């Protein structure tokens, strides 16, 4: 797969990830680590898969064969961090969504958000969640919130930002050591760090020496709904052709699909 050219002027890094779907076991460790890291509250008792908040969802899909020959795959879907035609950025009336030039990361600023949810309608990946309820943690659990991420109120949209606060921490560490550039090993999002099977590779896609850039060019890579031209910075990899076909919605829909979103 060809890496798309830089589309935003002045970008110095283009952080992205390669997710090896053949290594994902669907355990959900990344989702829990993500929620804990980003102070995502436990769902309201009435929350379901449409109204709950998850910055990273692992979808289960199958190849549509009858049981027991069905093949199952798990697809972790964080914000795809689109680099071009970024649908959420172009529709936001509040400028609450923008691409951070220094990292290529699409940022969502909840305090600026007015909750119109245009961005959720625009996002083709269902990567955005709306706070339908006041955030509620069981008594005494507020103490265990991550101090690097602020909490959100009811009525705003939130989404994955590749744990931007970790990039900030890496930059601060580099600055304290007298360097302007964060060292690549210091910045890993929580999901990448959490994955027990190392299905995630993370780094600068524009750095040709990085593992992630090499993996992104490797065999069997694809991106979700590539035909939309959104240039996502989340790249998937699988040796199984049916998974690759699924990515562009090429597999016939037959009502047996388990994935909903």
């Amino acid at each position: 797969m060809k890496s798309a050219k830089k589309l935003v002027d002045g970008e110095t890094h283009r952080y992205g990830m390669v997710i090896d779907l053949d290594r994902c076991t669907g355990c959900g460790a990344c989702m829990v680590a993500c929620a804990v890291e980003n102070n995502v509250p436990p769902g309201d008792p009435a929350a379901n898969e449409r109204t709950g908040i998850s910055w990273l969802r692992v979808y289960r899909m199958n190849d549509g064969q009858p049981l027991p020959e069905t093949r199952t795959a798990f697809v972790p879907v964080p914000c795809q961090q689109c680099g071009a035609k970024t649908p959420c950025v172009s529709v936001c009336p509040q400028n609450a969504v923008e691409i951070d030039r220094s990292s290529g990361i699409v940022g969502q600023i909840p305090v600026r958000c007015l909750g119109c949810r245009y961005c959720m309608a625009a996002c083709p990946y269902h990567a955005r969640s709306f706070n339908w309820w006041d955030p509620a943690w069981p008594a005494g659990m507020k103490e265990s919130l991550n101090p690097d991420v602020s909490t959100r109120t009811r009525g705003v949209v939130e989404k994955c930002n590749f744990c931007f606060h970790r990039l900030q921490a890496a930059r601060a560490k580099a600055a304290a050591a007298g360097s302007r550039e964060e060292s690549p090993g210091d910045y890993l999002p929580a999901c990448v760090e959490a994955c027990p099977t190392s299905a995630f590779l993370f780094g600068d896609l524009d750095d040709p020496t990085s593992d992630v850039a090499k993996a992104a060019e490797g065999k069997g890579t694809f991106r979700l709904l590539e035909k939309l031209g959104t240039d996502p910075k989340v790249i998937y990899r699988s040796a199984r052709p049916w998974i690759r076909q699924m990515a562009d919605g090429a597999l016939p829909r037959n009502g047996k699909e388990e994935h909903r979103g």
Partner: protein
Amino acid sequence: MTSRSFAFVAGLTPALVVGWLGFPRLLYKRVEQPLSFSHKVHTGEKGGMACADCHALGPDGRFTGIPRLEKCAGCHAQPIGTTADEKRFVDDYLNKGQEVPWLVYSRQPDNVHFPHAVHIGKKVPCERCHGPHGTTDTLRAWQVNRISGYSRDIWGPRITRAFRRPWEGMKMNDCIRCHAERGQSSSCLACHK
């Protein structure tokens, strides 16, 4: 003067007085610091210390803010001076192992990420944002906005925010202006978490 304009002025004047003088007093609650502390004694000729001697960066680049007890105890394990507050510090806090609940003038809201390491590294002196705080002899009362809960230093001491000196005010606009002057990023994520 007609009675109409007299009535108008009679309504206008108290409103202006209340609005400009009374309201700020009402809006901000004054809270005294738990102890008096003289930066001047520490940074002046007697102490000869620099800001970074107490307000340092941690090894991970995280700013440690107001020093904790053990830092103070390095010198003040026993009272050095003769002030009552120093004795109180040793008796009430140090010997009980209880941190002093200092009130931070420049505390930013929860959604702001301000890495000291990045700014100090780019040769922004402490005084650019904190003014002559390091040379004050007493700690002024901490003032908190009763509605927003923010420290008054975020807005700045003058309610008009006119003719303010560079360090007066720590609102987002103040950050943005300095970033623009220095050609730094004005991306939301750069400062918000």
